[in-house]
């Protein structure tokens, strides 16, 4: 069976170093992107099963990314999980308006819990 693909867009390398091996151990293929622009470039070449997206990102931020995703008819329905430390009502509502599947605040979730959330959505 082909591995499910996850696009992980996050600028903090140390978070990639923790979460990516965990996801790989759970049987996923992970594409790491360190800014919004690279994330979109990967998205041009791949069709991930899920996108894990930070909101504050260099070059193109999470909202710019979501806006570009919306314009890709073949990929606009890929489930997106926001993983951020922003918790303002404005940010949550704006993210939800793009039809994201979950909004996780990094400080409130352990990496293993993030993996569980991904598994729940991809079930």
């Amino acid at each position, binding site marked *: 069976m082909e591995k499910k693909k996850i696009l992980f867009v996050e600028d903090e390398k*140390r978070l990639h170093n923790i979460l990516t*091996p965990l996801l790989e*151990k759970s049987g996923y293929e992970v594409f790491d992107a360190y800014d919004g622009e690279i994330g979109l470039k990967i998205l041009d070449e791949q069709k991930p099963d899920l996108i894990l997206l930070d909101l*504050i990102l260099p070059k193109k931020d999470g909202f710019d990314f979501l806006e570009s995703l919306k314009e890709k008819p073949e990929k606009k329905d890929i489930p997106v999980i926001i993983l951020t430390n922003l918790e303002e009502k404005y940010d949550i509502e704006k993210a939800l308006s793009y039809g994201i599947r979950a909004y996780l605040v990094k400080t409130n979730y352990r990496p293993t819990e993030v993996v569980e959330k991904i598994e729940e959505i991809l079930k």
Partner: protein
Amino acid sequence: MPNKENNLKKLLQVFSFKKYCQEYKVGIWECPPVVFSIMGVVIIFSILVTYFIGQVYADPLVLILIICGVTITLLILSFIILNSFERIARASKDKSEFISIMSHQLRNPLSSIKWQLDLLLNKDLNPTGETGRQALLSIDEQNERMVGLVNDLLETSRMENDSIVLTKTEFSLVSLIKDIMSKYAERATSSNIELIFSPSDNEITMSSDKSKIAAVITHFLDNAMRYSPNGGKISISVDKKEGKIKFSIADEGVGISEKDEKMIFKKFFRGTDSKKYKSDGLGVGLYLIKSIISALGGQVSFSSIEGKGSTFWFILPIK
């Protein structure tokens, strides 16, 4: 009797305008309760005066002039009240924005520490050797980041309250800059940023507050690193001329927009696009730099081209 005294004290406290004005940090003549009280006195006084003048003169023109005068006075007082309310409302908005930025800035290192600890405690992953060491180094780095944030806040508060203490010693500025740059060497290498230092003389010494100058240079370098692109260059130079020292730092970063130029030395101000770049920072670095350099009797300034980079400099007396 003591009860009556207490009640009197409580009543007097209600009229303690000074305390109220200090609490909201507005001047006594801009303080809403004070202006409201003046307005009340003006209204009562003008009613009485109008009554007595009306009794004596019974001339409608005089009465109209008095009423016009009173109305203008009341209008001016209302304008002052509105203004002071606006200032208080703005202060409250700034405060909530600050809490939001502060909690976000603390959350970043906290979440990173939480995730690293989770990794270290995860029996399945069991990170040993280099991976474990890297996790511990990262925890240490994030902890330092939080210490830095809290220290900056305390320093800002000291600046606000004018309780900054300066201790002058003689030291080598060149060595100090080299020490600070060495702390950034690893970060510069990993971001492929070239750090260049070119002093006009290797023996530039000065008599000033070493730790405060170190804080200024650290803030400058930190900002330059934060906004520099991969492969960028940061050039630092120091020059000694006519009893003064000029330090300057140039980067090839995002620069400062014309709109932001007037605001950058203001407390808690963060560039319009700061969210798009690296999010660290409370927006107090340049405020602290300006406050410290002013306290040491110097000047600080900058030039910038949006999209091309910025050059910041300060000039300080050698002694």
